[in-house]
């Protein structure tokens, strides 16, 4: 499968790669031989129907679950603790501690081993970015859905990741909250953070993405530049999806 970003004349070495990535559970092949190169500074969008394996792929790439076959490489080496520490992830439903907004930020920085002095700087920067300055001492769980997701994004960015995974971060948000999240992502991307974004929103994919991987039944159905894939999809799965045609949900193949 052609790696996204391959159009560049002299592609930089991949920041994160998947080689023959497979994952099966319950006798089903949920991820089936995925090869991907994520190049530094790019924003890769992952699209596909529900159950195509998008969230699962993100978790495999981030090392939250282990593949049943294949491997994930961070800068050419097997993903280890250092590689994990250079990444961060924001989930579709933000997971916030039962603490104040400020305490949520401090916890993330403390467990990442950031020095006290540096913590104060990053905390202030995260607060400025999130525009949650008036709510710092409020319990994080009483914030609105948009504010909670904003906190989750700035918390992840406060860890200074080289690579940020976003799993449908705006799926449950209104346009205003979506705009605020996209602004944060755009700014982070502009400052050099590599992004992997799962979304169902083609508009968002065009606004934020450089490369696009379209998954179907746990496999890469199509990959390339966002505009190329969205404007002229080659695979039937991507074409049907983008044309809004109804088609039966793909069933994961039985485990080989």
């Amino acid at each position, binding site marked *: 499968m052609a790696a996204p970003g391959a159009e560049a004349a002299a592609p930089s070495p991949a920041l994160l790669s998947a080689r023959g990535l497979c994952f099966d559970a319950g006798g089903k092949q949920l991820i089936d031989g995925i090869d991907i190169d994520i190049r530094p500074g790019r924003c890769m969008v992952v699209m596909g129907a529900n159950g195509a394996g998008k969230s699962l792929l993100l*978790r495999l790439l*981030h*090392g*939250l679950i282990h593949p049943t076959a294949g491997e994930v490489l961070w800068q050419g080496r097997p993903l280890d*603790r250092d590689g*994990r*520490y250079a*990444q*961060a*992830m924001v*989930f579709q439903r933000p*997971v916030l*501690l*039962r*603490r104040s907004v400020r305490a949520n930020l401090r*916890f*993330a920085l*403390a*467990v*990442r081993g950031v020095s006290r002095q540096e913590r104060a700087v990053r905390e202030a920067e995260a607060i400025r970015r999130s525009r949650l300055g008036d709510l710092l001492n409020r*319990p*994080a*769980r*009483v914030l609105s859905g948009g504010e909670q997701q904003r906190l989750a994004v700035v918390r992840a960015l406060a*860890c200074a990741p080289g690579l940020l995974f976003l799993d449908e971060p705006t799926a449950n948000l209104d346009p205003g909250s979506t705009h605020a999240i996209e602004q944060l992502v755009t700014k982070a991307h502009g400052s050099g953070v590599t992004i992997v974004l799962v979304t169902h929103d083609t508009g968002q994919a065009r606004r934020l993405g450089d490369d696009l991987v379209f998954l179907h039944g746990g496999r890469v159905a199509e990959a390339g530049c966002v505009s190329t894939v969205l404007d002229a999809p080659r695979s039937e799965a991507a074409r049907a999806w983008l044309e809004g045609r109804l088609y039966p949900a793909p069933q994961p193949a039985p485990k080989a």
Partner: protein
Amino acid sequence: MESVWRIFAEAVGLILDWDSDLIEIIGLSLRVTLAAVAVSCAIGLPLGATVGAFRFPGRTAIIVLLNALMGLPPVVVGLIAYMMLSAAGPLGPLELLYTPAAMMIAQTILVTPIVAALSRQVVEDYYCEYAEQFASLGVGPFDRVTALLRDARYSLLTVALAGFGRAVAEVGAVIIVGGNINHATRVMTTAIALETSKGNLELALALGVVLLAIAVAVNGAAMTLRASAVRMAYA
């Protein structure tokens, strides 16, 4: 029926008169029970949190054991503690038998499995919710346990309360290792048993009323605290 009301009135009178024997017994009961609950929480909360937050070989066996130990018969615990603390036992040289310390040890043995088993369940529920975020942040084992204990603190208060309830109402173990010695190891439950057998129902009932009042007050305080925590989205 009239005599029941008379006994009840005399019991209330004893409480209102601040009877010195009554106060001494209540004071010792609370000291022993609170010390036992404190030690049980110090052992049981980290133990329960560790079992709840980690997967390791033998974990299921530990959970089964903790759950089984929740139903320990107090007289059996009293007997084991007695054998340990008696002159011929391994802890005999400490000369703790028939002292409040012995009663505290017996109550600790009874309450620790309750605290550990219930906190395991609470922490496991919290961890299910936090697991991926913690893995993503790279939270280490120590931070994982302390963070879960901190975030589950209001639920764990109920766990400590369950331990307190078990300890303060317990009679079988403390009477074996404490001996129910007047002005030394007499607590509310052992005094109630003794005074009832002597026919001194006024004191027995007064102690019973105090015991109930303590249980209601502690439960009420815990529920109020937890309700406010839920309102503030901290629980």
